[in-house]
């Protein structure tokens, strides 16, 4: 049986400090320390980097026998911060070449010396030593309260495109279903197709928007789709729920069942897991934690807040779509608007620019606690307009997975105008004081200890 995989996730605002820190011109291999929370998902352990701390040049000690040697005292402020914030310690350095990388014998000796010391100070956290190459990474991890080292490791650098540094991905066998995807592959390339086939995408809400998204992800050949929706089909869903039949409405089938059937008919190699529970329930939270990207197709701010919270906590990119149609009434003109918000952890969240706010949440409960939330009023929905937003959401997923288009890293969202049929990019001003990004980003699982 193989080791548990450890995935080190670096939010986008820490990617440059990390990479520049380990590649700074220096007479030795520069080292950068990361402070990290952690989380356990079904198949992997996540190390969620919250802070990057480079070692100042004067702290290194010349030693021709080692790639890097530093003064013991240099560790004191780092360990003090780690203990104050109850975070694990990750030592990063670089081996600047393409192809698989690995820790040298000297790196391993150093890691086996330092990681148990970190564990003595912070037994409830995971600690690691990681080497980063140009397109791969390797390392060893000492898990919480464990004396066994884990050596299956990948590093995920978050940005508008995910950059997975993974020795195993480099040695993946030839792709399955190449014939189906050869036209798509002309845009995405072999590496992009591998990323699509390896990806797990969670889709929350499987009605007008979400069913389009699931259908397109299945056609695209995404490895695993997790569909989350507790509702059953009714007759009114037939106007917009892709893949639904009259019998599904008659039998009140779960929407997850309809999606599972649709996906298996499109491509039996695409795995679909249906979760017939709403997001705050444990099975739904556990399923969402396994996702590489989450697409939210929900119609309330409370539901968005739940997804945003989980996505940020576990450093998962979150693509949100929403459509609002105000039909002509009381002399007011028709208005059709919507949005596609691609929130990359470390860039901006829905709280940063006021899309989520206490006022908006309170408007759904009449200013009372969440337990008074009764759901949103029924609003107009039109399949074609749901489809426009869903298609854009899937393109955003494709961009995150494959980086098919050269994009700048400027934070932006897309606004939809259904009357003109246009999607317009709007630049978002980052909010460095966003409390949500400061406190929740990369928080991981709670660490409980006896009081």
């Amino acid at each position, binding site marked *: 049986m193989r080791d548990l995989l450890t995935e080190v996730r670096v939010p986008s605002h820490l990617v440059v400090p990390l990479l520049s820190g380990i590649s700074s011109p220096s007479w030795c291999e520069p080292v950068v320390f990361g402070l990290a929370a952690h989380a356990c998902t079904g198949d992997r352990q996540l190390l969620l980097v919250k802070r990057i701390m480079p070692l100042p040049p004067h702290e290194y000690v010349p030693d021709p026998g080692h790639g890097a040697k530093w003064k013991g005292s240099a560790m004191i402020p780092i360990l003090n911060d780690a203990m104050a914030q109850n975070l694990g310690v990750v030592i990063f350095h670089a081996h600047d070449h393409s192809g698989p990388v690995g820790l040298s014998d000297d790196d391993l000796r150093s890691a086996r010396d330092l990681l148990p010391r970190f564990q003595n100070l912070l037994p409830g956290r995971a600690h690691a030593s990681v080497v980063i190459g140009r397109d791969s990474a390797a390392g060893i991890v000492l898990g919480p309260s464990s004396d066994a080292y884990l050596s299956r490791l990948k590093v995920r650098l978050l940005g508008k495109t995910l950059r997975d540094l993974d020795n195993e991905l480099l040695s993946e066998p030839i792709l399955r279903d190449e014939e189906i995807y050869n036209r798509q592959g002309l845009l995405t390339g072999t590496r992009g197709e591998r990323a699509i086939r390896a990806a797990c995408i969670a889709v929350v809400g499987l009605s007008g928007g979400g069913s389009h998204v699931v259908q397109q992800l299945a056609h695209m050949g995404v490895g695993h789709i997790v569909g989350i929706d507790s509702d059953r089909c009714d007759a009114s869903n037939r106007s917009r729920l892709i893949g639904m039949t009259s019998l599904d409405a008659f039998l009140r089938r779960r929407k997850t069942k309809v999606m599972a059937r649709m996906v298996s008919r499109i491509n039996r190699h695409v795995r679909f897991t249906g979760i017939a529970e709403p997001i*705050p329930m*444990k099975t739904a*939270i556990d399923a969402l934690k396994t996702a590489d990207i989450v697409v939210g197709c929900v119609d309330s701010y409370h539901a968005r807040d739940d997804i945003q919270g*989980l996505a940020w906590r576990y450093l998962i990119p979150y693509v949100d779509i929403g459509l609002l149609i105000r039909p002509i009434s009381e002399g007011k003109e028709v208005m059709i608007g919507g949005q596609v918000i691609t929130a990359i952890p470390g860039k901006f969240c829905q709280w940063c620019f006021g899309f989520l706010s206490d006022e908006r949440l309170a408007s759904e409960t009449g200013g009372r606690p969440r337990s008074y939330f009764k759901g949103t009023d029924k609003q107009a929905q039109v399949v074609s307009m749901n489809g426009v937003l869903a298609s854009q959401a899937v393109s955003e997923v494709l961009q995150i997975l494959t980086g098919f288009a050269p994009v700048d890293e400027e934070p932006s969202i897309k606004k939809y105008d259904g009357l003109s049929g246009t999607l317009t990019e709007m630049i978002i001003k980052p909010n460095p004081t966003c409390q949500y990004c400061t406190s929740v980003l990369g*928080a991981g699982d709670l660490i*409980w200890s006896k*009081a």
Partner: protein
Amino acid sequence: MTEQERAIELATLKEVYGEVERANGAGGRQLFRIGKAALPAGCKPSHTAVLLIPQPGRPQIYVRPGITLPNGRTPRSTTPVAVEGENWLQFSYSFPWDENRHSLMQFIEASLRRFGKDE
């Protein structure tokens, strides 16, 4: 609440409920988890885990989802929520509370009485 007052509160909670755990949440807030607190007679299950978040004014309290009332129904005005990535049930119940006069144990016991009401 001073550190000393909190320590006394914590000792009382441990004495009454046995297992009490602590965690640091986002933004440094402290969370306490009580493994097993008794629900009013007739509720199913008969006991629940409790999440308590002390804060100025009134503490926040949550229980595990899935409780049914003595009349067999699901309690009204309750909703499952994600608190720090964990699934809990939020509920509303009004009763007089003064943090200077009442203990956390009293707060928990008074809050859980909500599940004795058949609504």
